[in-house]
């Protein structure tokens, strides 16, 4: 679903890159932007977005993922599973060395997974909970034995989530206090060179990288520019060549995309596939009534929001599973913009005009405008909405305390319902104090059963039918409002080739990138 603008840009990109020589060439350093400045670069210890972007080029995982989320070899050359879906065997690449020259072996994998991530990394722990044992079989084979089959297991090895860290530097130390944290050592295509706080993070080519010829670039400079307008100017005046998603304000994107020699891609976020949602408090008030929640879905003009606020980038979701999630049920009847239907539902439930509070996401102008649009949509069907503005801290706290009626948020989907979707609906995931769990307070035994069964069902056909049923129930119950799958575009000069080739975009994209100038 692209707008004519996006299509035109895509077409330009195609013709321009088609005109170039196809043979990648070596040399050149790319200047880009990291926003905001990451707190540290040791992936596995820190998993926020800026750390993933920079350090995803230093560290690696066992697998990487295509834009269709197909697993591809990275540190693991090949993998195999037994017939029950329980024993996974990974063959590691030979001849891989850490940036300090030590060899990378199966021992590093066991250490990273079983010790390092179990201690530090909540998202890896969610997967490791299903793992019975991790054993090295020789230097280049690792065997994971699961307690029960776990559907998304093969999607869990992305570098940012399941980072391989060097055992010889971390074993037996206090991980958070390790002296090597300030000089990260990975196996990736680029080595850490220098970090001038508040100014630039410099990475240089790893000459001993295990894939011949790669990487093509001599280095990457990640500039830190705190002001949004200055970041746009930095691209306009040629200081930087690549603007990763989230670097410039949304409303600047169409203008920048029309500049000469500028290409834009919406690919490279499939693994995260951020899904914007409207929390609805299922516990009390009008939002407790299913009919009210359905009315909200009919009242909102989501296409308008996408076209006007997000410049046509992104996708209006059908229901609870996004288009990049596996097992999406596409036979559901969409909640189209239908104010009359919304009014009918409100009449039917006998809505009496009780005030409903709306909490916008304090992440900048686009989100504020979006809340205004939703507020107006809801008022037009007769819902008495009052917007409450708040800052990030207040937003976290109010959601954690369930002190809201309607609230904006967005969550990553991580490619598989068991990783990124079920957490929003499982009643076992209701816990006060966090804005990231089942904040809506939705409880449905059947949904719990289906999600839990589907996570450990094997093979995929089994999972598919369970997920279909769960989607039908959710579609009817509307535990949250499904607003939009956000498009996070990457802007770059068209002579930067092969930048976005994976489902995590620039996070590991510079490995294959080359400059045609």
């Amino acid at each position: 679903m692209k707008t004519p603008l996006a299509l035109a840009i895509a077409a330009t990109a195609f013709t321009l890159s088609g005109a170039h020589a196809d043979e990648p060439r070596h040399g050149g350093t790319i200047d880009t932007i990291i926003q905001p400045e990451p707190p540290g670069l040791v992936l596995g210890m820190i998993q926020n977005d800026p750390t993933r972007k920079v350090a995803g080029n230093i560290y690696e995982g066992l697998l990487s993922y295509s834009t269709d989320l197909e697993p591809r070899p990275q540190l693991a050359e090949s993998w195999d599973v037994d017939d029950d879906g329980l024993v996974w065997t990974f063959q590691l690449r030979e001849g891989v060395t850490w940036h300090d020259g030590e060899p990378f072996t199966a021992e590093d994998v066991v250490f990273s997974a079983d010790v390092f991530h179990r201690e530090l990394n909540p998202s890896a722990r969610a997967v490791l909970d299903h793992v019975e044992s991790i054993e090295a079989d020789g230097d280049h084979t690792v065997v994971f034995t699961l307690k029960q089959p776990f559907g998304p297991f093969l999607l869990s090895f992305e570098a940012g989530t399941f980072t391989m860290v060097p055992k010889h530097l971390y074993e037996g130390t206090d991980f958070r206090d390790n002296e090597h944290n300030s000089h990260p050592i990975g196996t990736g295509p680029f080595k850490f060179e220098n970090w001038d706080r508040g100014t630039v993070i410099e990475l240089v080519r790893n000459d001993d990288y295990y894939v011949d010829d790669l990487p093509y670039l001599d280095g990457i400079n990640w500039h830190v520019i705190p002001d949004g307008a200055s970041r746009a100017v930095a691209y306009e005046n040629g200081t930087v060549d690549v603007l990763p998603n989230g670097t410039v304000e949304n409303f600047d994107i169409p203008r920048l995309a029309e500049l000469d020699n500028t290409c834009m891609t919406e690919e490279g976020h499939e693994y995260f596939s951020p899904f914007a949602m409207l929390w609805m408090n299922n516990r009390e008030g009008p939002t407790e009534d299913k009919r009210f929640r359905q009315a909200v879905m009919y009242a909102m003009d989501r296409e308008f929001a996408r076209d006007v606020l997000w410049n046509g980038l992104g996708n209006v979701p059908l229901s609870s599973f996004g288009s990049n999630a596996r097992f999406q049920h596409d036979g559901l009847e969409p909640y189209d913009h239908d104010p009359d239907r919304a009014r009918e539902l409100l009449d039917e439930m006998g809505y009496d005009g009780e005030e409903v509070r709306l909490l916008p996401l304090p992440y900048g102008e686009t989100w504020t405008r979006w809340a205004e649009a939703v507020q107006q949509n809801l008022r037009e069907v007769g819902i008495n909405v009052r917007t409450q503005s708040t800052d990030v801290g207040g937003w976290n706290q109010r959601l954690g305390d369930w002190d809201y009626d309607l609230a904006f948020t967005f969550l990553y989907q991580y490619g598989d319902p068991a990783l990124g979707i079920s957490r929003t609906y499982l009643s076992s995931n209701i816990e006060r104090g966090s804005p990231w769990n089942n904040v809506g307070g939705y409880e449905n035994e059947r949904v719990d059963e289906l999600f839990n069964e589907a996570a450990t069902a094997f093979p995929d056909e089994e999972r598919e039918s369970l997920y279909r049923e769960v989607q039908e129930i959710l579609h009817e119950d509307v535990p949250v409002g499904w607003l939009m799958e956000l498009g996070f575009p990457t802007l770059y000069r068209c002579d930067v080739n092969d930048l976005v080739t994976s489902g995590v975009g620039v996070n590991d994209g510079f490995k294959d990138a080359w400059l045609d100038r």
Partner: protein
Amino acid sequence: MSFFARFAQNRGALIGLIILLTIIAMAILAPLLFPESPWRMVQRPFLPPMEVDGFPLGTDTMGRNVAAGLMHGAWVSLLIGLVSTTVALAIGVPLGAIAGYYGGLIDDALMRFTEFFQTIPNFALAIVLVAIMQPSITSIVLAIAIVSWPPVARLVRAEFLSLRNREYVEAARLVGQSNTTIILRQILPNTLSPIIVLASLMVATAILLESALSFLGLGDPNVMSWGYMIGAARTVIRQAWWLSFFPGVAILLTVLALNLVGEGLDDALNPKLARERS
């Protein structure tokens, strides 16, 4: 010479009054001319001014009618200006009167208290107050009142200090009038003219403060105000100049008009000063 004649002698004041009356008329007529909510998305976004009938000032980032926003915003701005000034007077006048009339320890205590507020920069304090109380019309009015009463208190105190030993006050005391009566019936009426002049300027400052708060995103998210319109438009200033231009002009004109009127009132209420000045 009548009061109005004296006021009208100041040409600027007359122009200011006309502008101000126009803006008041805008505020009153807003619900009649634009009965729909100014938040309603009615046309395609970024419509330039004078392009489509019914949208003389174009539409904003989300297709909302800028003219409707401007008219409804006039109401909000004037309301906030007037109410917060009234609240500020309600705090400042009694404090200043008591401090000036009684003097001594009471004066010292009250003036130190006033100075405490005066040493904190107005705008910074207003931001903090609104952020703590959550942005809403009430919290904004309160915040503006709280940061703008100290000059009132100081002015009233100074007036009281100079008036409290006049003969008519002594006479009132002599006939046994109570302190409260003297303050309210004898001295206060004689301090009214500087207070009125100050108040007219305070309304202007209050409108500016509200706009600045809204500009920073600390406005009431349920109310369309001029400051909000500029704040929301600043991000697209390169694409759509008219979104920030018209509300900006509206703020400029209103504040200017209030200042001119204030000056005219000053002239009219202090004919002696005015004559000396000219």
